[in-house]
């Protein structure tokens, strides 16, 4: 079955510092990777969508300067949260698919900012 691994599972960083999270697709080639943030209130915000052979598309309120994403091959993606502050806390989810509409999510990286 399709598996998406995210690591670390949880991380704590000081306000103003940065942290990097990684996402690995196992058992399939991820032609698209979507990064979401789930707030403490459980709402999902799409940060950016990365499709192979296309530029990474960021949603409104999210920028490459704040959330740089790397998608170097069909099984790996990483995202960094630069200069993290309290409003950046939440569960960051990586969803991957292999060409259909269905996204398979990892367990997420929970970011706490002190």
């Amino acid at each position, binding site marked *: 079955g399709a598996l998406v691994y995210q690591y670390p599972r949880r991380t704590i960083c000081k306000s103003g510092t940065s942290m990097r999270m990684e996402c690995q697709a196992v058992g399939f080639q991820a032609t698209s990777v*979507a990064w979401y943030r789930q707030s403490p209130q459980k709402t999902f915000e799409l940060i950016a*969508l990365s499709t192979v052979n296309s530029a990474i598309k960021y949603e409104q309120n999210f920028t490459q300067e704040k959330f740089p994403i790397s998608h170097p091959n069909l099984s790996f993606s990483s995202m960094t949260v630069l200069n993290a502050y309290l409003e950046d806390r939440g569960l960051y989810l990586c969803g991957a698919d292999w060409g259909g509409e269905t*996204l398979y*999510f990892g367990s997420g990286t929970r970011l706490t900012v002190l």
Partner: protein
Amino acid sequence: QQQVRQSSQSLTVWEGETAILNCSYENSAFDYFPWYQQFPGEGPALLIAIRSVSDKKEDGRFTIFFNKREKNLSLHIKDSQPGDSATYFCAAINNYAQGLTFGLGTRVSVFP
């Protein structure tokens, strides 16, 4: 404006009952509707999905009923078990380039 709306924030059922979760959407162009199940501390897991050309999709104890004209759908969980206690998200997509749009979730509690 919430493009995908789930009518209940929470739902409580007894073990063995059928839990019914309702979802409606605004965008007529949405044509694929996955439901995700999320346990505390975990990411959302794909449970079952339906395309807009169908009006019903069944997978074990889980069934989606879809009404394109009314722009709504429902997830039925038959013979609910305590292990089904989780938050369920209705989602929709029309063009993969735009990503999935999620509802706010319905937290289901199944009591023995």
